[in-house]
């Protein structure tokens, strides 16, 4: 391995005026699980990213891309970290082919900025990931972030039509293309999405877009227990109704929302929020029918939200839970009620508190556990929660937790038998380990 100063000189010879941060004070802002990168670079375009990665690869240094930094808490503790590549200067919307409902964008643009530019032509990228002002397109794709509206619009895998990705040797490779339907070659877009930067650095993306819906309204329902709430969800999913989101909020989460965001949700029982979009006629019919279904399942009351109130509500819900320990469980929709019961039992047994916000229509639960410093109890409780998730044909990932907890448990869970296939891919794509190892599933 070479001296970092030599590397910086070499890099700046190749890429004039490349912004580099290497003083320890500034670097501390970029720590990942307590680990400081040896330097941070801020390339201005894909070619510069390519140059940095190519040189790191030749010199045997490790790199990791960072967008807005809002999801750096994901994953296990990295093995090493030489160069952090911040993509925040790659912010151009390269093309917005509005009549085709597609766009091509650099990876460092924030989601909010992209939406605001697309919005000038009445369109949006239907991906409502958390923290849009901070989160970048590249970070969202690398971490496969999504939001409540995935129920209607799907996730990144359903919206990306093409990617440009810097490979481990610095070459830039394209996958997919600019058109909405394309089966030419392997669908590498799917492979890169959610791979947490272990296979390449995403520098550009092409998306399918949607027109911004004419209207939106949210129906809030309250249930005294999770069985009734989930029976309502299952009935709605099996009906003609097409809600954009079906969000289940438990008492713990409702409490937090009331305390910190001034939302007035009932703090016992469960709140079910149903988001509807489209023409007013359709929204009204759906709200009516949803109320009817809810009533047969014992819903207590049903307000609806519109305008600013609605916007604020979803902003808060979307941020889901940002306590020090949060888990994401993906399980069968039909098992959610039972799972919530098990969660209560497990928490009681280990003297923990919990708060849950769930994409109930997709079977995805964000679970916050408290207190975050009860390391031993948390390790045990998480193991039990993971076992229950597996029994519900699902998985549990610890998305956020203190470093000492990361040392005590596997945030991803043990990889399955197909892990060999993943390892072989990683070895092909990144034989020298140019992209930081240790963070992703099985240490990839």
């Amino acid at each position, binding site marked *: 391995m070479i001296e970092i100063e030599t590397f910086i000189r070499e890099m700046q010879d190749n890429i004039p005026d490349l912004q580099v941060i290497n003083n320890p004070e500034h670097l501390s802002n970029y720590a990942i699980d307590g680990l400081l990168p040896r330097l941070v670079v801020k390339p201005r375009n894909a070619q510069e990213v390519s140059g940095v990665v190519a040189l790191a690869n030749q010199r045997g240094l490790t790199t990791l891309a960072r967008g807005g930094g809002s999801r750096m808490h994901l994953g296990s503790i990295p093995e090493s970290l030489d160069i952090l590549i911040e993509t925040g200067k790659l912010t151009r919307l390269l093309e917005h082919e509005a009549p085709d409902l597609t766009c091509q964008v650099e990876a460092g643009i924030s989601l909010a900025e992209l939406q605001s530019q697309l919005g000038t032509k009445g369109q949006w990228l239907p991906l409502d990931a958390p923290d849009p002002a901070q989160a970048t397109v590249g970070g969202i794709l690398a971490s496969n972030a999504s939001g409540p509206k995935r129920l209607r619009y799907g996730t990144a895998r359903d919206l990306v039509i093409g990617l440009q990705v810097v490979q481990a040797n610095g070459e830039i490779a394209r996958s997919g293309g600019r058109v909405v339907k394309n089966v030419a070659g392997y669908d590498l877009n799917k492979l890169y*999405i959610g791979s947490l930067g272990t296979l390449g650095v995403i520098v550009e993306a092409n998306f399918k877009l949607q027109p911004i819906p004419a209207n939106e309204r949210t129906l809030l329902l309250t249930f005294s227990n999770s069985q009734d709430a989930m029976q309502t969800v299952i009935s709605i999913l099996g009906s003609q109704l097409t809600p954009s989101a079906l969000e289940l909020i438990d008492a713990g989460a409702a409490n937090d929302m009331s305390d910190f965001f001034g939302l007035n949700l009932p703090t016992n029982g469960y709140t079910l929020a149903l988001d509807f979009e489209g023409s007013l006629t359709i929204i009204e019919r759906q709200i009516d029918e949803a109320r009817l279904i809810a009533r047969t399942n014992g819903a207590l009351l049903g307000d609806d939200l519109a305008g600013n109130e609605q916007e604020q509500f979803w902003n808060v819900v979307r941020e889901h839970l940002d306590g020090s320990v949060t888990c994401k469980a993906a399980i069968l929709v039909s098992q959610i009620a039972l799972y919530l019961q098990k969660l209560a039992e497990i928490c009681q047994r280990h003297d923990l508190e919990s708060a849950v916000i769930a994409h109930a229509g997709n079977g995805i639960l964000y679970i916050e556990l408290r207190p975050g410093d009860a390391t031993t109890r948390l390790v045990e409780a998480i193991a039990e929660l993971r076992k229950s998730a597996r029994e519900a044909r699902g998985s549990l990932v610890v998305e956020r937790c203190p470093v000492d907890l990361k040392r005590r448990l596997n945030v991803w869970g043990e990889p399955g038998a*197909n892990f060999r296939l993943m390892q072989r891919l990683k070895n*092909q794509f990144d034989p020298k380990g140019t992209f930081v190892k240790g963070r992703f599933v099985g240490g990839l």
Partner: protein
Amino acid sequence: MSITELPLAVAAPLFERLSEQKKAEVVRDLSILLGARYVLSSPYDLMLYEYDASIDRSKPDIVVLPSTTEEVAEIVKIAARYDIPVVPRGAGTGLSGGAVPIYGGIVIVFARMNRILEVDYENLRAVVQPGLVNLHLSNALNSTGFYYVPDPSSQRSCTIGGNVGENAGGPHTLIYGVTTNHVLGLEIVTADGEILQVGDWTPDVPGYDLTGLIVGSEGTLCIVTKIIVKMVHLPEAVKTLVAIFDSLDDASNTVSEIISSGVIPSAIEMMDQMILQAVEADSQAGYPLDAAAVLLMESEGMAEGVREQVEAIVRVCEQHRARSVRIAANEEERQRFWAGRKNAFGAVGRICPEFYVQDGVVPRTRLPQVLRRISEICASYGLRVGNVFHAGDGNLHPLILFDSQIPGEIERVRQAGHEILQVCADAGGTITGEHGVGLEKQEEMALIFSETDLRVMQQVREAWNPRQLLNPGKLFPQPGRCAEVKQL
């Protein structure tokens, strides 16, 4: 449609043809495994399996019909032991040669693995075997109000396993997406003969999205033996419209304006004059013979939404000088409209013995220019062409008519096809929207992907199927065959 043997490869083949002696040994081993009934090896039995719905053909040495995943795994192990290729095959309706065993070897036919294993109405999931016919799944779900969305035109015969291999589409994928958007998990047999599960009933499985990578990999990475799919509620209302245009440009512009205005119907299909005449001669769907183009459109969902959408569509059609717009009055008329479209390929068979269908995609706004270029290209080769395609997502299907008895005609067809794909690539599009690359478009991959792009893709095959035991010689430009294309 299958008309010609593949030209001889210039480079050394990946696999030698089997000797009679080796073949006898393999047949013996396979017969012990499966029972002699399910191992076919006589020339007569094999003939059926030497082609699909594309131009290319090549005979397998052995055809096997396993009934379980374990048998598939054992077949792969036997093939590995003898170093002979394995090609999975659904119903053979593929249009790019994906199931054609160019180096011979073993073809696995999934006709006996055609069951629906599980249906879960609460979680809206079904688990099926790869040999299940696409339409049979929807038929099984319809009575309870659900269906499986992807509906390739061959859905009466094509299999879900084949759909997964090609990432098949269909007319109704405009709002709901193609096969990959409806598949959550798979059971697979690797090139080592190992049985693994990828993906699951639930989304966001930790690790790489192996399911997404395998869908559309054309049998070149692993063999799929089980498929977990999503079920969708049948719409309460469906309206079908036919708009008739005196100019192709007006029809094309209507398509792109409907989409860009934010109205996304469930299907927008276009047929040009040549196709209309063929269709009318065949099935009397009621299309005028003198029209330049017809748009067949469908709106589905909640009744109120359908009403609003139909009004919007009619408005756009009229703004673009549609001669008339007709809304199907009842299910019978709706079926007649669709019969014209779904039987279009067959109808063309009445006016010409053979045709070659392309599958390029262009941005919807480029349809008018690209359709003009297609006519010009075909005219310059003295070939007739008709267009019947998924206009809503810019997925072209030019049908080039020809007669293989005319010397040199096939080569002119291939060359015209190549030029059309060049036009699609230049317009910012792609060479295949739903048929796959297979054998047919290997060279054309270079029209849209750089050497680096292709090398990166090949890393995946290198990782999982390094000896190319599974479906060899597909998908990527072949070093040996480049030379031939240049000779054309």
